[in-house]
Protein backbone atom coordinates (compact mmCIF):
# COMPACT_ATOMS: atom_id res chain seq x y z
CA UNK A 1 0.00 0.00 0.00
CA UNK A 2 1.38 3.37 -0.91
CA UNK A 3 1.30 6.02 1.77
CA UNK A 4 -0.83 9.09 1.11
CA UNK A 5 0.90 12.29 0.17
CA UNK A 6 0.64 14.47 3.23
CA UNK A 7 0.85 18.21 2.78
CA UNK A 8 1.20 20.26 5.89
CA UNK A 9 1.94 23.97 5.97
CA UNK A 10 4.91 24.00 8.33
CA UNK A 11 6.02 27.55 7.75
CA UNK A 12 3.79 30.45 8.68
CA UNK A 13 2.08 32.17 5.78
CA UNK A 14 4.01 34.79 3.86
CA UNK A 15 2.87 38.29 4.69
CA UNK A 16 0.31 39.84 2.38
CA UNK A 17 0.71 43.36 1.08
CA UNK A 18 -1.84 45.58 -0.59
CA UNK A 19 -1.59 45.72 -4.36
CA UNK A 20 -1.96 49.29 -5.64
CA UNK A 21 -3.04 50.27 -9.17
CA UNK A 22 -0.18 51.86 -11.08
CA UNK A 23 0.27 54.30 -13.93
CA UNK A 24 3.19 53.74 -16.26
CA UNK A 25 4.62 57.13 -15.36
CA UNK A 26 4.18 59.74 -12.64
CA UNK A 27 5.25 63.24 -13.72
CA UNK A 28 6.04 65.81 -11.05
CA UNK A 29 5.30 69.29 -12.36
CA UNK A 30 8.27 71.07 -10.83
CA UNK A 31 8.72 72.39 -7.35
CA UNK A 32 8.49 75.79 -5.70
CA UNK A 33 9.36 76.94 -2.21
CA UNK A 34 6.56 78.51 -0.21
CA UNK A 35 8.11 81.96 -0.78
CA UNK A 36 7.79 81.45 -4.55
CA UNK A 37 4.12 80.66 -4.09
CA UNK A 38 3.37 84.18 -2.82
CA UNK A 39 3.04 85.63 -6.30
CA UNK A 40 0.46 84.31 -8.79
CA UNK A 41 2.56 85.51 -11.77
CA UNK A 42 5.56 83.56 -10.45
CA UNK A 43 3.40 80.39 -10.34
CA UNK A 44 2.16 80.96 -13.88
CA UNK A 45 5.72 81.55 -15.10
CA UNK A 46 6.72 78.26 -13.45
CA UNK A 47 4.12 76.23 -15.34
CA UNK A 48 5.03 77.97 -18.60
CA UNK A 49 8.60 76.72 -18.19
CA UNK A 50 7.44 73.18 -17.41
CA UNK A 51 5.01 73.00 -20.32
CA UNK A 52 7.39 71.94 -23.15
CA UNK A 53 8.70 69.09 -21.00
CA UNK A 54 5.25 67.81 -20.05
CA UNK A 55 4.19 68.01 -23.71
CA UNK A 56 7.23 65.99 -24.68
CA UNK A 57 6.59 63.37 -21.97
CA UNK A 58 2.88 63.05 -22.75
CA UNK A 59 3.62 62.58 -26.46
CA UNK A 60 6.33 60.07 -25.73
CA UNK A 61 4.03 58.07 -23.45
CA UNK A 62 0.88 58.49 -25.53
CA UNK A 63 -1.43 55.52 -25.04
CA UNK A 64 0.04 54.74 -21.63
CA UNK A 65 -1.27 55.59 -18.20
CA UNK A 66 0.38 58.82 -17.05
CA UNK A 67 -0.52 60.92 -14.01
CA UNK A 68 0.79 64.32 -12.94
CA UNK A 69 1.39 65.65 -9.47
CA UNK A 70 2.52 68.74 -7.62
CA UNK A 71 4.02 68.78 -4.13
CA UNK A 72 3.34 71.83 -1.98
CA UNK A 73 6.18 72.64 0.35
CA UNK A 74 4.27 73.40 3.58
CA UNK A 75 6.59 71.45 5.92
CA UNK A 76 9.13 74.18 6.53
CA UNK A 77 6.76 77.16 6.32
CA UNK A 78 3.05 77.60 5.84
CA UNK A 79 2.69 81.11 4.48
CA UNK A 80 -0.38 80.44 2.36
CA UNK A 81 -3.46 78.38 3.17
CA UNK A 82 -4.91 75.60 0.98
CA UNK A 83 -8.10 77.65 0.51
CA UNK A 84 -6.04 80.42 -1.10
CA UNK A 85 -3.33 78.51 -2.86
CA UNK A 86 -4.92 75.39 -4.36
CA UNK A 87 -7.40 77.20 -6.67
CA UNK A 88 -4.59 79.54 -7.73
CA UNK A 89 -2.31 76.61 -8.59
CA UNK A 90 -5.00 74.81 -10.57
CA UNK A 91 -5.80 77.99 -12.48
CA UNK A 92 -2.18 78.89 -13.22
CA UNK A 93 -1.47 75.37 -14.51
CA UNK A 94 -4.64 75.28 -16.56
CA UNK A 95 -3.82 78.68 -18.11
CA UNK A 96 -0.68 77.01 -19.51
CA UNK A 97 -2.64 73.94 -20.60
CA UNK A 98 -1.37 71.71 -17.80
CA UNK A 99 -3.61 69.42 -15.72
CA UNK A 100 -2.59 68.68 -12.14
CA UNK A 101 -4.00 65.22 -11.32
CA UNK A 102 -2.77 64.97 -7.74
CA UNK A 103 -1.76 67.53 -5.17
CA UNK A 104 0.37 66.44 -2.25
CA UNK A 105 1.66 68.24 0.78
CA UNK A 106 5.22 67.72 1.93
CA UNK A 107 4.20 67.22 5.59
CA UNK A 108 2.42 64.10 4.38
CA UNK A 109 5.85 62.54 3.84
CA UNK A 110 6.56 63.09 7.54
CA UNK A 111 3.13 62.09 8.85
CA UNK A 112 0.17 60.62 6.98
CA UNK A 113 -2.89 59.26 8.76
CA UNK A 114 -1.09 58.30 11.96
CA UNK A 115 1.85 56.72 10.13
CA UNK A 116 5.21 58.38 9.53
CA UNK A 117 6.38 57.46 6.03
CA UNK A 118 9.72 59.16 6.78
CA UNK A 119 10.28 56.99 9.87
CA UNK A 120 9.39 53.87 7.88
CA UNK A 121 11.94 54.81 5.23
CA UNK A 122 14.55 55.71 7.86
CA UNK A 123 14.20 52.19 9.28
CA UNK A 124 14.87 50.75 5.82
CA UNK A 125 18.10 52.66 5.21
CA UNK A 126 21.06 50.27 4.84
CA UNK A 127 24.30 52.29 4.65
CA UNK A 128 26.75 51.07 2.01
CA UNK A 129 29.84 49.44 3.48
CA UNK A 130 33.37 50.74 2.94
CA UNK A 131 35.82 48.15 1.67
CA UNK A 132 36.84 45.88 4.54
CA UNK A 133 33.47 45.99 6.33
CA UNK A 134 32.84 42.37 7.35
CA UNK A 135 29.91 42.82 9.70
CA UNK A 136 31.98 43.04 12.87
CA UNK A 137 31.43 46.76 13.42
CA UNK A 138 28.43 47.71 15.49
CA UNK A 139 25.66 49.33 13.45
CA UNK A 140 26.36 52.97 12.65
CA UNK A 141 25.23 55.35 15.35
CA UNK A 142 22.17 57.27 14.37
CA UNK A 143 23.73 60.59 13.60
CA UNK A 144 21.18 61.85 11.13
CA UNK A 145 23.79 61.75 8.36
CA UNK A 146 24.22 59.36 5.48
CA UNK A 147 27.36 59.11 3.41
CA UNK A 148 28.56 57.24 0.34
CA UNK A 149 32.20 57.46 1.40
CA UNK A 150 34.73 56.64 4.07
CA UNK A 151 36.69 59.27 5.98
CA UNK A 152 34.33 62.17 5.33
CA UNK A 153 34.27 63.46 8.86
CA UNK A 154 37.73 64.31 10.11
CA UNK A 155 37.08 66.11 13.35
CA UNK A 156 38.90 69.24 14.43
CA UNK A 157 40.32 67.26 17.36
CA UNK A 158 41.93 64.80 14.99
CA UNK A 159 43.32 67.65 12.90
CA UNK A 160 44.72 69.37 15.98
CA UNK A 161 46.23 66.13 17.21
CA UNK A 162 48.47 66.45 14.18
CA UNK A 163 47.14 63.50 12.25
CA UNK A 164 47.90 63.67 8.59
CA UNK A 165 45.03 64.57 6.36
CA UNK A 166 43.72 61.65 4.37
CA UNK A 167 41.26 62.18 1.56
CA UNK A 168 37.80 60.64 1.82
CA UNK A 169 37.13 57.74 -0.52
CA UNK A 170 33.84 56.92 -2.17
CA UNK A 171 32.76 53.36 -1.38
CA UNK A 172 33.15 51.28 -4.50
CA UNK A 173 34.77 54.10 -6.53
CA UNK A 174 36.62 52.92 -9.61
CA UNK A 175 39.35 55.54 -9.81
CA UNK A 176 38.19 58.88 -8.46
CA UNK A 177 35.65 59.69 -5.81
CA UNK A 178 32.53 61.80 -5.62
CA UNK A 179 31.82 61.96 -1.90
CA UNK A 180 28.46 62.97 -0.53
CA UNK A 181 27.43 63.47 3.06
CA UNK A 182 23.72 64.08 3.41
CA UNK A 183 21.83 65.27 6.44
CA UNK A 184 18.62 63.31 6.91
CA UNK A 185 17.24 65.06 9.97
CA UNK A 186 18.07 67.33 12.86
CA UNK A 187 16.58 68.10 16.25
CA UNK A 188 15.78 71.78 16.58
CA UNK A 189 15.21 73.29 20.00
CA UNK A 190 11.74 71.85 20.58
CA UNK A 191 13.24 68.38 20.33
CA UNK A 192 10.97 67.00 17.64
CA UNK A 193 12.87 65.42 14.76
CA UNK A 194 12.83 67.69 11.69
CA UNK A 195 13.37 65.81 8.45
CA UNK A 196 15.57 67.36 5.79
CA UNK A 197 14.21 68.45 2.44
CA UNK A 198 16.35 65.82 0.69
CA UNK A 199 15.05 63.03 2.91
CA UNK A 200 11.38 64.02 2.51
CA UNK A 201 11.90 64.21 -1.26
CA UNK A 202 13.27 60.66 -1.20
CA UNK A 203 10.19 59.56 0.76
CA UNK A 204 8.04 61.39 -1.82
CA UNK A 205 9.66 59.40 -4.65
CA UNK A 206 9.04 56.11 -2.79
CA UNK A 207 5.40 57.11 -2.21
CA UNK A 208 4.93 57.80 -5.93
CA UNK A 209 6.57 54.48 -6.78
CA UNK A 210 4.10 52.78 -4.40
CA UNK A 211 6.89 50.96 -2.58
CA UNK A 212 5.95 51.82 1.02
CA UNK A 213 3.60 49.80 3.19
CA UNK A 214 2.65 49.89 6.82
CA UNK A 215 1.66 46.45 8.13
CA UNK A 216 0.93 45.51 4.53
CA UNK A 217 -1.28 48.52 3.79
CA UNK A 218 -0.54 51.30 1.31
CA UNK A 219 0.05 54.57 3.11
CA UNK A 220 -2.01 56.97 1.03
CA UNK A 221 -5.22 56.40 -0.91
CA UNK A 222 -5.75 59.62 -2.86
CA UNK A 223 -9.39 60.70 -3.02
CA UNK A 224 -11.12 63.80 -4.30
CA UNK A 225 -11.68 66.58 -1.79
CA UNK A 226 -15.32 67.42 -1.26
CA UNK A 227 -16.28 71.03 -0.54
CA UNK A 228 -14.14 74.15 -0.22
CA UNK A 229 -10.47 73.75 0.65
CA UNK A 230 -9.70 74.26 4.35
CA UNK A 231 -7.59 77.00 5.93
CA UNK A 232 -5.10 74.59 7.50
CA UNK A 233 -2.94 72.18 5.52
CA UNK A 234 -3.19 69.62 8.32
CA UNK A 235 -6.89 69.24 7.54
CA UNK A 236 -6.06 67.83 4.11
CA UNK A 237 -4.94 64.24 3.54
CA UNK A 238 -1.36 63.73 2.36
CA UNK A 239 -2.40 63.43 -1.29
CA UNK A 240 -5.65 64.57 -2.90
CA UNK A 241 -6.97 63.77 -6.33
CA UNK A 242 -7.93 66.82 -8.38
CA UNK A 243 -9.04 65.33 -11.67
CA UNK A 244 -11.92 62.87 -11.64
CA UNK A 245 -10.55 60.87 -14.55
CA UNK A 246 -6.93 60.93 -13.41
CA UNK A 247 -4.82 57.81 -13.94
CA UNK A 248 -3.49 56.15 -10.77
CA UNK A 249 -1.24 58.20 -8.48
CA UNK A 250 1.20 55.32 -8.01
CA UNK A 251 3.43 54.54 -10.96
CA UNK A 252 6.08 52.08 -12.10
CA UNK A 253 8.45 54.96 -12.82
CA UNK A 254 8.66 58.63 -11.97
CA UNK A 255 9.85 61.71 -13.85
CA UNK A 256 10.55 64.90 -11.95
CA UNK A 257 11.02 68.16 -13.87
CA UNK A 258 12.89 70.75 -11.83
CA UNK A 259 14.82 73.98 -12.06
CA UNK A 260 18.59 73.58 -11.90
CA UNK A 261 18.76 75.07 -8.39
CA UNK A 262 17.34 71.76 -7.07
CA UNK A 263 20.04 69.57 -8.60
CA UNK A 264 22.10 69.22 -5.39
CA UNK A 265 19.07 68.20 -3.35
CA UNK A 266 18.08 65.68 -5.99
CA UNK A 267 21.61 64.22 -6.09
CA UNK A 268 21.12 63.67 -2.36
CA UNK A 269 17.67 62.17 -3.03
CA UNK A 270 19.14 59.64 -5.47
CA UNK A 271 21.94 58.85 -3.03
CA UNK A 272 19.40 58.20 -0.25
CA UNK A 273 17.15 56.10 -2.52
CA UNK A 274 20.17 53.96 -3.35
CA UNK A 275 20.44 53.06 0.33
CA UNK A 276 16.83 52.12 0.99
CA UNK A 277 16.02 48.40 1.04
CA UNK A 278 12.50 47.77 -0.22
CA UNK A 279 10.29 45.20 1.53
CA UNK A 280 11.05 42.05 -0.52
CA UNK A 281 7.36 41.09 -0.62
CA UNK A 282 6.45 44.49 -2.10
CA UNK A 283 9.39 44.34 -4.52
CA UNK A 284 8.27 40.92 -5.79
CA UNK A 285 4.68 42.10 -6.14
CA UNK A 286 5.66 45.11 -8.28
CA UNK A 287 7.85 42.90 -10.49
CA UNK A 288 4.90 40.58 -11.02
CA UNK A 289 2.53 43.45 -11.76
CA UNK A 290 4.98 44.89 -14.29
CA UNK A 291 5.55 41.53 -15.97
CA UNK A 292 1.80 40.95 -16.28
CA UNK A 293 1.48 44.29 -18.08
CA UNK A 294 4.62 43.88 -20.18
CA UNK A 295 6.25 46.84 -18.49
CA UNK A 296 10.02 46.80 -18.41
CA UNK A 297 11.12 47.60 -14.87
CA UNK A 298 14.69 47.78 -13.53
CA UNK A 299 15.28 45.92 -10.23
CA UNK A 300 17.34 48.84 -9.01
CA UNK A 301 14.81 51.38 -7.71
CA UNK A 302 17.09 54.39 -8.34
CA UNK A 303 16.81 53.62 -12.04
CA UNK A 304 13.04 53.92 -11.86
CA UNK A 305 13.47 57.58 -10.94
CA UNK A 306 14.28 60.09 -13.70
CA UNK A 307 14.95 63.82 -13.52
CA UNK A 308 15.04 66.74 -15.92
CA UNK A 309 16.77 69.90 -14.76
CA UNK A 310 16.00 72.97 -16.79
CA UNK A 311 15.64 76.70 -16.27
CA UNK A 312 13.14 77.05 -19.06
CA UNK A 313 15.37 76.12 -21.95
Amino acid at each position, binding site marked *: MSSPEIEVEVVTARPRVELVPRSHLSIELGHLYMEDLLHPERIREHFAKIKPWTDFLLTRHAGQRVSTCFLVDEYFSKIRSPAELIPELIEAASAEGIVIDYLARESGCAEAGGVSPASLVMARVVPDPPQGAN*GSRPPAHETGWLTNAEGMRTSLNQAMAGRRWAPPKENGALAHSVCLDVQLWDNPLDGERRWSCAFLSAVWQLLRLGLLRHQGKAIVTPDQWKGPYPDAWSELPAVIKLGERAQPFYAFRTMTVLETRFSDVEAAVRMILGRV*AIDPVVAAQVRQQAAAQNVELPDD*IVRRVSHVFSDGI
Partner: protein
Amino acid sequence: MSSRTASEGDLAVGEVRTGFLSHSRALSLEAALILLELVPGEQVRSASRPRAYAVSPEPLTGIDCVLPSLNGRRTRAVGTVASRVTLTGGRILQACSYAEIVRAGSGNRQAWSHYLSHPGVVETLGKLNAEDAAAGFAESERGSRGIEVGIIAEQQMNGVQNSPMLDGVLPVRARRGSWRWAFQRPEKGGGELFRFKILGDGTRLLRLALPDHGLDDVIDLVEDLALHDWLLSTVEEILERAQLGSGPPAKMLPLVRPVIDHVLHHWMPAARVKPELMPLWATLDRAQGFTRQWDLSVHRVRDQLALNTVTMLSAASDGYRADADEPALRRA
Protein backbone atom coordinates in the same frame (compact mmCIF):
# COMPACT_ATOMS: atom_id res chain seq x y z
CA MET B 1 11.50 36.41 2.84
CA SER B 2 11.39 35.44 -0.77
CA SER B 3 11.24 31.79 -1.61
CA ARG B 4 14.50 31.03 -3.32
CA THR B 5 14.89 28.19 -5.73
CA ALA B 6 17.76 25.87 -6.37
CA SER B 7 19.10 27.69 -9.39
CA GLU B 8 19.79 30.99 -7.66
CA GLY B 9 23.01 30.43 -5.76
CA ASP B 10 25.86 28.00 -5.46
CA LEU B 11 26.45 28.52 -1.79
CA ALA B 12 24.85 29.99 1.32
CA VAL B 13 26.47 30.53 4.69
CA GLY B 14 24.90 31.41 8.00
CA GLU B 15 25.09 31.37 11.76
CA VAL B 16 22.42 30.70 14.38
CA ARG B 17 22.44 31.77 18.01
CA THR B 18 19.99 30.27 20.49
CA GLY B 19 19.16 31.29 24.04
CA PHE B 20 16.43 32.10 26.51
CA LEU B 21 14.59 35.38 26.04
CA SER B 22 15.76 37.59 28.88
CA HIS B 23 12.33 37.90 30.40
CA SER B 24 11.02 36.25 33.55
CA ARG B 25 7.75 35.11 31.99
CA ALA B 26 6.86 33.49 28.67
CA LEU B 27 5.96 36.18 26.13
CA SER B 28 2.51 36.05 24.53
CA LEU B 29 2.30 35.77 20.75
CA GLU B 30 0.77 39.26 20.59
CA ALA B 31 3.72 40.73 22.47
CA ALA B 32 6.15 38.73 20.28
CA LEU B 33 4.67 40.40 17.20
CA ILE B 34 5.71 43.78 18.60
CA LEU B 35 9.07 42.60 19.97
CA LEU B 36 10.17 41.16 16.64
CA GLU B 37 9.18 44.12 14.47
CA LEU B 38 12.83 44.63 13.53
CA VAL B 39 11.87 46.58 10.41
CA PRO B 40 9.09 48.97 11.48
CA GLY B 41 6.00 48.70 9.29
CA GLU B 42 6.93 45.26 7.97
CA GLN B 43 4.93 42.30 9.21
CA VAL B 44 6.05 39.70 11.74
CA ARG B 45 4.90 36.21 10.71
CA SER B 46 3.53 33.87 13.33
CA ALA B 47 1.92 30.52 13.99
CA SER B 48 0.28 29.20 17.14
CA ARG B 49 0.56 25.49 16.26
CA PRO B 50 2.19 23.12 16.88
CA ARG B 51 3.55 25.70 19.30
CA ALA B 52 3.76 29.49 19.46
CA TYR B 53 6.28 30.70 16.93
CA ALA B 54 7.01 34.16 15.52
CA VAL B 55 9.58 35.22 12.95
CA SER B 56 10.79 38.76 12.35
CA PRO B 57 11.18 40.61 9.06
CA GLU B 58 14.79 40.62 7.86
CA PRO B 59 17.04 43.64 8.40
CA LEU B 60 20.13 43.82 6.16
CA THR B 61 23.79 44.50 6.93
CA GLY B 62 26.12 45.68 4.17
CA ILE B 63 29.50 43.98 3.74
CA ASP B 64 32.47 44.43 1.42
CA CYS B 65 35.20 42.01 2.47
CA VAL B 66 36.95 38.76 1.57
CA LEU B 67 35.02 35.51 1.44
CA PRO B 68 35.59 32.64 3.85
CA SER B 69 38.32 30.28 2.68
CA LEU B 70 40.07 27.17 3.86
CA ASN B 71 43.13 27.71 1.69
CA GLY B 72 43.71 31.41 2.23
CA ARG B 73 42.10 32.64 -0.99
CA ARG B 74 41.27 36.32 -0.91
CA THR B 75 38.17 36.73 -3.03
CA ARG B 76 36.43 40.06 -2.47
CA ALA B 77 32.67 40.04 -2.16
CA VAL B 78 30.04 42.76 -1.77
CA GLY B 79 26.40 42.56 -0.73
CA THR B 80 24.08 42.19 2.20
CA VAL B 81 23.71 39.70 5.01
CA ALA B 82 20.07 39.17 6.03
CA SER B 83 19.04 38.40 9.60
CA ARG B 84 15.91 37.04 11.15
CA VAL B 85 15.02 36.58 14.79
CA THR B 86 12.49 34.00 15.95
CA LEU B 87 10.74 33.34 19.24
CA THR B 88 9.57 29.80 19.99
CA GLY B 89 7.15 28.95 22.77
CA GLY B 90 7.37 32.51 24.08
CA ARG B 91 10.76 31.64 25.60
CA ILE B 92 13.45 30.60 23.16
CA LEU B 93 15.04 33.30 21.07
CA GLN B 94 17.04 32.50 17.95
CA ALA B 95 18.89 34.85 15.64
CA CYS B 96 19.91 33.61 12.23
CA SER B 97 22.06 35.68 9.87
CA TYR B 98 22.83 34.38 6.43
CA ALA B 99 23.91 35.26 2.93
CA GLU B 100 23.76 33.54 -0.40
CA ILE B 101 27.03 33.84 -2.26
CA VAL B 102 26.88 34.17 -6.03
CA ARG B 103 29.31 35.11 -8.73
CA ALA B 104 28.83 38.65 -10.06
CA GLY B 105 28.55 39.43 -13.73
CA SER B 106 31.17 42.14 -13.42
CA GLY B 107 34.55 42.39 -11.68
CA ASN B 108 33.80 45.86 -10.27
CA ARG B 109 31.70 46.88 -7.32
CA GLN B 110 28.30 48.12 -8.50
CA ALA B 111 26.15 50.98 -7.21
CA TRP B 112 24.89 50.08 -3.73
CA SER B 113 21.26 50.12 -4.93
CA HIS B 114 22.10 47.11 -7.11
CA TYR B 115 22.98 45.05 -4.02
CA LEU B 116 19.92 46.27 -2.13
CA SER B 117 17.70 44.97 -4.90
CA HIS B 118 18.99 41.46 -4.07
CA PRO B 119 18.63 41.27 -0.28
CA GLY B 120 20.61 38.57 1.50
CA VAL B 121 22.88 38.04 -1.49
CA VAL B 122 26.64 38.62 -1.60
CA GLU B 123 28.33 38.83 -5.01
CA THR B 124 31.96 37.88 -5.54
CA LEU B 125 34.10 40.23 -7.59
CA GLY B 126 36.27 37.33 -8.72
CA LYS B 127 36.01 33.60 -9.22
CA LEU B 128 33.99 31.77 -6.59
CA ASN B 129 35.35 28.51 -5.25
CA ALA B 130 32.26 27.34 -3.39
CA GLU B 131 33.95 24.23 -2.01
CA ASP B 132 36.83 26.18 -0.47
CA ALA B 133 34.54 28.90 0.90
CA ALA B 134 32.10 26.39 2.45
CA ALA B 135 34.95 24.40 4.02
CA GLY B 136 36.60 27.57 5.33
CA PHE B 137 33.39 28.72 6.91
CA ALA B 138 31.80 25.63 8.36
CA GLU B 139 34.21 22.74 8.43
CA SER B 140 37.47 23.62 10.04
CA GLU B 141 38.80 25.78 12.81
CA ARG B 142 41.71 26.65 10.55
CA GLY B 143 39.55 28.36 7.96
CA SER B 144 39.16 32.12 7.78
CA ARG B 145 35.57 33.18 8.16
CA GLY B 146 35.84 36.39 6.17
CA ILE B 147 32.27 37.61 6.69
CA GLU B 148 31.48 37.87 10.41
CA VAL B 149 27.98 36.45 10.07
CA GLY B 150 28.05 35.32 13.72
CA ILE B 151 28.72 38.81 15.02
CA ILE B 152 25.83 40.12 12.94
CA ALA B 153 23.53 37.43 14.40
CA GLU B 154 24.68 38.29 17.91
CA GLN B 155 24.05 42.00 17.36
CA GLN B 156 20.52 41.22 16.21
CA MET B 157 19.97 38.98 19.23
CA ASN B 158 21.35 41.56 21.64
CA GLY B 159 19.17 44.23 20.06
CA VAL B 160 16.05 42.19 20.87
CA GLN B 161 17.29 41.22 24.36
CA ASN B 162 17.79 44.90 25.19
CA SER B 163 14.20 45.78 24.28
CA PRO B 164 12.39 47.83 26.93
CA MET B 165 9.53 45.31 26.60
CA LEU B 166 11.64 42.75 28.47
CA ASP B 167 12.48 42.76 32.19
CA GLY B 168 16.00 41.43 31.59
CA VAL B 169 15.59 38.41 33.87
CA LEU B 170 16.65 35.06 32.40
CA PRO B 171 14.42 32.21 33.61
CA VAL B 172 17.52 30.08 34.11
CA ARG B 173 21.21 30.46 33.39
CA ALA B 174 22.15 28.72 30.13
CA ARG B 175 24.93 29.10 27.59
CA ARG B 176 24.06 30.53 24.19
CA GLY B 177 24.02 27.91 21.45
CA SER B 178 26.16 28.68 18.44
CA TRP B 179 25.82 27.01 15.02
CA ARG B 180 27.75 27.89 11.88
CA TRP B 181 26.58 26.35 8.63
CA ALA B 182 27.25 26.28 4.91
CA PHE B 183 24.79 24.99 2.35
CA GLN B 184 25.74 24.07 -1.20
CA ARG B 185 23.77 22.86 -4.13
CA PRO B 186 25.94 20.16 -5.62
CA GLU B 187 26.85 20.47 -9.26
CA LYS B 188 25.56 17.80 -11.61
CA GLY B 189 27.03 14.50 -10.50
CA GLY B 190 28.34 16.04 -7.27
CA GLY B 191 27.63 14.17 -4.08
CA GLU B 192 25.32 15.08 -1.26
CA LEU B 193 26.99 16.02 1.96
CA PHE B 194 26.06 16.20 5.62
CA ARG B 195 29.05 16.92 7.82
CA PHE B 196 28.67 17.85 11.48
CA LYS B 197 31.38 18.79 13.92
CA ILE B 198 31.61 20.26 17.41
CA LEU B 199 34.50 22.62 18.14
CA GLY B 200 36.29 22.92 21.48
CA ASP B 201 34.40 26.10 22.35
CA GLY B 202 31.07 24.37 21.77
CA THR B 203 30.40 25.87 18.34
CA ARG B 204 28.59 23.47 16.05
CA LEU B 205 29.70 23.31 12.41
CA LEU B 206 27.40 21.92 9.76
CA ARG B 207 28.11 21.52 6.06
CA LEU B 208 25.26 20.52 3.84
CA ALA B 209 25.14 19.82 0.13
CA LEU B 210 21.69 18.97 -1.16
CA PRO B 211 20.07 19.31 -4.53
CA ASP B 212 16.57 20.69 -5.02
CA HIS B 213 16.03 22.43 -1.72
CA GLY B 214 15.18 26.07 -1.13
CA LEU B 215 17.35 28.11 1.20
CA ASP B 216 14.31 28.99 3.33
CA ASP B 217 13.69 25.31 4.05
CA VAL B 218 17.33 24.72 4.91
CA ILE B 219 17.30 27.67 7.33
CA ASP B 220 14.19 26.22 9.01
CA LEU B 221 15.99 22.88 9.34
CA VAL B 222 19.19 24.34 10.78
CA GLU B 223 17.24 26.51 13.23
CA ASP B 224 15.27 23.50 14.40
CA LEU B 225 18.43 21.40 14.84
CA ALA B 226 20.11 24.25 16.70
CA LEU B 227 17.07 24.70 18.94
CA HIS B 228 16.92 21.06 20.02
CA ASP B 229 20.68 20.73 20.38
CA TRP B 230 20.56 23.78 22.66
CA LEU B 231 17.63 22.39 24.69
CA LEU B 232 19.61 19.23 25.28
CA SER B 233 22.79 21.10 26.23
CA THR B 234 20.79 23.32 28.57
CA VAL B 235 19.19 20.36 30.37
CA GLU B 236 22.58 18.68 30.72
CA GLU B 237 24.10 21.91 32.03
CA ILE B 238 21.37 22.27 34.64
CA LEU B 239 21.54 18.61 35.72
CA GLU B 240 25.28 18.93 36.12
CA ARG B 241 24.87 21.97 38.35
CA ALA B 242 22.24 20.10 40.37
CA GLN B 243 24.63 17.16 40.90
CA LEU B 244 21.77 14.81 40.13
CA GLY B 245 21.93 11.66 42.26
CA SER B 246 24.99 12.68 44.24
CA GLY B 247 24.05 15.98 45.84
CA PRO B 248 21.62 16.55 48.69
CA PRO B 249 17.96 16.46 47.49
CA ALA B 250 17.13 19.75 49.15
CA LYS B 251 19.76 21.47 46.97
CA MET B 252 18.86 19.48 43.89
CA LEU B 253 15.16 20.36 43.68
CA PRO B 254 15.31 24.11 43.19
CA LEU B 255 18.03 23.60 40.57
CA VAL B 256 16.10 21.01 38.60
CA ARG B 257 12.76 22.78 38.76
CA PRO B 258 13.56 25.18 35.89
CA VAL B 259 14.05 22.17 33.60
CA ILE B 260 10.44 21.24 34.21
CA ASP B 261 9.14 24.80 34.18
CA HIS B 262 10.98 26.18 31.16
CA VAL B 263 12.67 23.50 29.09
CA LEU B 264 10.96 20.11 28.82
CA HIS B 265 7.81 21.10 26.94
CA HIS B 266 9.72 22.81 24.15
CA TRP B 267 11.10 19.52 22.82
CA MET B 268 9.27 19.00 19.55
CA PRO B 269 11.73 17.73 16.98
CA ALA B 270 11.27 18.80 13.36
CA ALA B 271 8.07 20.74 14.14
CA ARG B 272 8.87 23.31 11.45
CA VAL B 273 10.88 21.17 9.06
CA LYS B 274 9.69 20.39 5.52
CA PRO B 275 8.84 16.67 5.25
CA GLU B 276 11.47 16.20 2.51
CA LEU B 277 14.17 17.31 4.93
CA MET B 278 13.03 15.12 7.83
CA PRO B 279 15.48 12.33 6.95
CA LEU B 280 18.34 14.76 7.66
CA TRP B 281 17.00 15.36 11.14
CA ALA B 282 16.78 11.62 11.66
CA THR B 283 20.34 11.14 10.34
CA LEU B 284 21.86 13.65 12.71
CA ASP B 285 19.73 12.32 15.53
CA ARG B 286 20.99 8.78 14.89
CA ALA B 287 24.61 9.90 14.84
CA GLN B 288 24.46 12.37 17.72
CA GLY B 289 21.80 10.59 19.73
CA PHE B 290 19.82 13.76 20.50
CA THR B 291 16.57 11.94 21.25
CA ARG B 292 18.29 9.14 23.20
CA GLN B 293 20.13 11.62 25.40
CA TRP B 294 17.03 13.72 25.79
CA ASP B 295 14.92 10.75 26.86
CA LEU B 296 17.64 9.70 29.26
CA SER B 297 17.85 13.18 30.80
CA VAL B 298 14.09 13.46 31.09
CA HIS B 299 13.91 10.03 32.76
CA ARG B 300 16.67 10.99 35.17
CA VAL B 301 14.82 14.14 36.14
CA ARG B 302 11.57 12.25 36.60
CA ASP B 303 13.21 9.39 38.50
CA GLN B 304 14.91 11.83 40.82
CA LEU B 305 11.66 13.66 41.41
CA ALA B 306 9.86 10.37 42.04
CA LEU B 307 12.59 9.29 44.44
CA ASN B 308 12.44 12.62 46.10
CA THR B 309 8.66 12.42 46.39
CA VAL B 310 8.88 8.95 47.89
CA THR B 311 11.46 10.17 50.38
CA MET B 312 9.35 13.16 51.29
CA LEU B 313 6.20 11.06 51.55
CA SER B 314 7.81 8.51 53.73
CA ALA B 315 9.24 11.25 55.92
CA ALA B 316 5.78 12.77 56.13
CA SER B 317 4.10 9.46 56.88
CA ASP B 318 6.71 8.75 59.57
CA GLY B 319 5.70 12.03 61.07
CA TYR B 320 2.03 11.14 60.65
CA ARG B 321 2.55 7.83 62.39
CA ALA B 322 4.30 9.65 65.18
CA ASP B 323 1.32 12.00 65.44
CA ALA B 324 -1.11 9.09 65.35
CA ASP B 325 0.76 7.36 68.10
CA GLU B 326 0.59 10.37 70.33
CA PRO B 327 -2.99 10.08 71.67
CA ALA B 328 -2.39 6.45 72.48
CA LEU B 329 0.62 7.47 74.43
CA ARG B 330 -1.40 10.10 76.13
CA ARG B 331 -4.06 7.57 76.90
CA ALA B 332 -1.48 5.46 78.48
